C-alpha cells in the first residue's frame, strides 16, 4: 500500500495554487462573476499556460493524479472555468445531465460540448443558446439545448465524477481553513470562540467531513487508474462529496456567524458557487438511489464484498 501522491502531481498542484493566488484567488472569482468576460481574458490564458490540456487522466496514474490535484487547486478558489468538464474528456468537454438541462455552467467557454444523459445513457451535443445569465446560486449558467446524438467518450462519466470530487474537496478545504482560523481569531465573552465546546464540536465535524472526502476521493481515483472503478464506486464518491460539502458549508457558516454570510467573505462565495455542482445532474437523494441501484447490479467491494443482487439470489 502506498498512499503518497506522485511528486510530479504534487508539483503541478502547487503551481496551479500559486498561479491562481497570484491572480487574486477568490477575488478573481468575484471579479469574473461581476464581469463574465474576464473568464476568457484572464482565466482562459492561465488555464492554457498551466498545461491542463497537456495530459489525459486515462494515460496513467501520474496524469490522473495531476488532473485530480490540479482540479483540487482550482477548486480551492472555486475558479470559474469548466475545468472538470474538460479534464474528464479532453477534446470534447462533457456535462452530466439527467434530462434536457435548461442551463449549463460556462457552456459559452467551450466548443463541442457533449451532454451525457445518466438516465438513458445517450450522448448528445450540448449547445449554448445565449450568454451567461447570472443568478446567485448559478452564477455562470448558460441557456442551452440538446443537439444531435454522438458517440459517448470512454470512461468520461466516472472520470468526471472523480475529478469533480477533487474540485469540491479543494473548495471545502478552503472553507474548513477559514472556519478554524476564524475560531481562534474571534473573541466572544472575553475568550476565543474556539474555547467553547459547541464550537469545537463543529470544528471536529468539519475535519471529519473533509477527511472522509479526501480519503474516498484518493481511493476511487486509484480504482479508476487500475481499471476497477465501477459506477457504484463513482456514486459512492459523489454521495460522500455532497454530504461532506453540505456539512462543511453549514458548519463553516455557523462558526463564522453573520460575517460568513457577507458577500465580502470567501465562504459565501464558495457556498453559492458549489450549489450547482452539488445538484447537477442530481442531488443527494437521487445520488443515493443511483448508488443503491448500482450496488444491486454490480455489488460493492469491501473486506466482505456485497455481491450483485442477481448473483447472490441465484
Amino acid at each position, binding site marked *: 500500500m502506498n498512499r503518497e501522491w506522485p511528486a510530479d502531481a504534487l508539483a503541478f498542484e502547487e503551481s496551479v495554487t500559486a498561479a491562481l493566488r497570484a491572480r487574486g484567488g477568490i477575488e478573481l472569482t468575484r471579479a469574473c462573476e461581476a464581469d463574465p468576460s474576464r473568464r476568457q481574458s484572464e482565466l482562459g490564458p492561465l488555464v492554457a499556460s498551466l498545461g491542463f490540456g497537456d495530459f489525459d487522466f486515462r494515460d496513467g496514474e501520474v496524469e490522473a493524479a495531476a488532473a485530480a490535484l490540479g482540479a483540487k487547486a482550482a477548486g480551492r478558489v472555486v475558479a470559474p472555468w469548466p475545468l472538470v468538464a474538460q479534464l474528464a474528456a479532453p477534446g470534447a468537454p462533457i456535462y452530466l445531465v439527467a434530462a434536457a438541462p435548461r442551463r449549463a455552467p460556462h457552456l459559452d467557454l467551450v466548443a463541442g460540448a457533449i451532454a451525457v444523459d445518466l438516465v438513458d445513457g445517450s450522448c448528445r451535443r450540448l449547445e449554448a443558446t445565449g450568454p451567461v445569465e447570472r443568478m446567485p446560486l448559478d452564477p455562470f449558467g448558460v441557456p442551452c439545448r440538446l443537439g444531435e446524438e454522438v458517440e459517448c467518450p470512454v470512461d468520461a462519466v466516472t472520470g468526471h465524477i472523480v475529478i469533480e470530487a477533487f474540485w469540491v474537496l479543494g473548495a471545502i478545504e478552503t472553507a474548513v481553513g477559514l472556519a478554524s482560523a476564524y475560531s481562534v481569531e474571534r473573541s466572544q465573552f472575553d475568550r476565543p470562540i474556539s474555547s467553547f465546546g459547541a464550537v469545537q464540536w463543529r470544528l471536529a465535524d468539519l475535519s471529519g467531513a473533509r477527511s472522509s472526502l479526501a480519503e474516498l476521493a484518493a481511493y476511487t481515483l486509484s480504482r479508476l487508474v487500475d481499471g476497477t472503478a465501477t459506477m457504484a464506486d463513482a456514486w459512492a464518491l459523489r454521495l460522500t462529496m455532497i454530504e461532506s460539502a453540505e456539512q462543511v458549508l453549514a458548519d463553516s457558516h455557523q462558526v463564522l456567524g453573520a460575517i460568513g454570510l457577507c458577500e465580502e467573505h470567501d465562504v459565501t462565495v464558495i457556498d453559492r458557487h458549489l450549489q450547482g455542482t452539488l445538484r447537477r445532474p442530481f442531488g443527494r437523494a437521487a445520488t443515493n*438511489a443511483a448508488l443503491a441501484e448500482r450496488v444491486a447490479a454490480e455489488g460493492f467491494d469491501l473486506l466482505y464484498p456485497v455481491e450483485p443482487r442477481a448473483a447472490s439470489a441465484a
Partner: protein
Amino acid sequence: MTAQPMTFDDGEAVRDLRLQLRRMIDEDLPAGFHGAFVSGRAGQEVADRFCRRLAEENLLTMSWPREFGGADASIWEQTALREEMWAHHEPRGAQYMGLNWVGPSIMRFGTPAQREAHLAAIANGDSVWCQGFSEPEAGSDLASLRLRAERTGEGEWRLSGQKIWTSYAGLAQWCFLTARTDSSGSKHHGITVFLVPMDREGVTVREIDSMLGPHHLNEVFFDEVVATEAEILGELDHGWDVIRYVLAHERIGIARYARSERILSLLADRLPGDDRPEADALRAAHARLLVKARTARLMNYRAIASSTTAEIPGGVSGARLATTLLDQEVAALALEVLGEEGLYDDDLAPLAAWIEEAWRYARSATIASGTSEVQRLLIARAMIAEASR
C-alpha cells in the same frame, strides 16, 4: 511525468494471510460463537484454543519484534489480523489486550525481569490481562484517578481504591493498574503503573450487570493490596507516559469497521427486493452505510500509515470517531432490516442471533476507550493548534 504509483492494494502477503485466517476461523470456531464476552467462560475456552492454534501458526504475536518472539509483521499484516479477528467476534478473547498493548508496553517500558516474567506468557496465550484505568470519579478524565499507592517500606507499596468498567476482570490473572503515587504536583504527574496479579490478597472483583452481557463491565476493589517496587512499569510518578502510549495503541487497535463491513455484507441478502417506498428506503440506507464503512476503513488506514510517516492532526481520533458512529448506524440499520426477528437471541433468530448482540454492544461504541466527545475535543484541539501557528 515519472511513475510513482499510489496504490491501496495491501499486497499478496496480506491477501494470503486473510485467506489463512478465514480458513482457521471456519475450521476452529463453533457455529454461533459470539466472542468470549457473550459466551462467558465457555467462550474464553474457545478463545484459549484458538490462541494456541494461532501460536502454532506463528500468528499470535506476529506484530511483535523478533527479539521478543514475534514475526516483525508489517503494519498491513497486523491490520489484516485485527480486521479478521474483530469481524469474527475477536476469537482471541481477552488475549487481544495482552497482544495489542500490554505486551508492547512491557517491551517499551519494562525491566528485563518484567519482560521475562510476562512476555512469554502473553505470547503463549497463558495469561489474561485487564486494564485498571477507569475509576468512579475519573472516567474520560483518566488523570484524575485516585486509587492510592503508599510506600510502606523499602520496596513495598500498599494499593487502596477502586477501579470500574474493567473488562475481563473476572477472567484476568493480571491487572495493568494505574495508581496515584504523588498528589503534590499537576494531575498528570504522580501517576504510576503497577503490574498486579489479580489473585493477590485484597483484590475483589464484582461483576456489573449491563446490557452488554457478562464479563464486559466489572468493579475491582483494592483493599491495602501489597505491591512491590519490581511491579512498577516505567518510572515512578511518570505513568502518564505509559498511559499515552497505551491509549494510542488501544484507540487504533480495534478494527470495529471490519465488523460493520461484515454485518453489512450479510444484511445485503436480507434487504427487501420489492418496490415499496420503505424497501427503497432500506436499500438506500444500506448503500449509504456501505460507503461510510469503506470511508471509515480508509480513515483508519490513513491513521495507521501516518504513524509510520508524517503525523496528521487528530488523525487517530477522526478515524475512531467515524468508526464508532458507523458501528451504531450499522447496528440500528440491521435491526431495522430484520425487524422483530432481530430482537431475538434464540436458535431461530436470523444471522445466528448476532444482530441483537451487535446492537447492544454498539451502544458502548461511542463511550468505551475514549468517548466520542473526547475524540471530538482532541480533533478540535489539533485544528486549533494548527490554526494558531
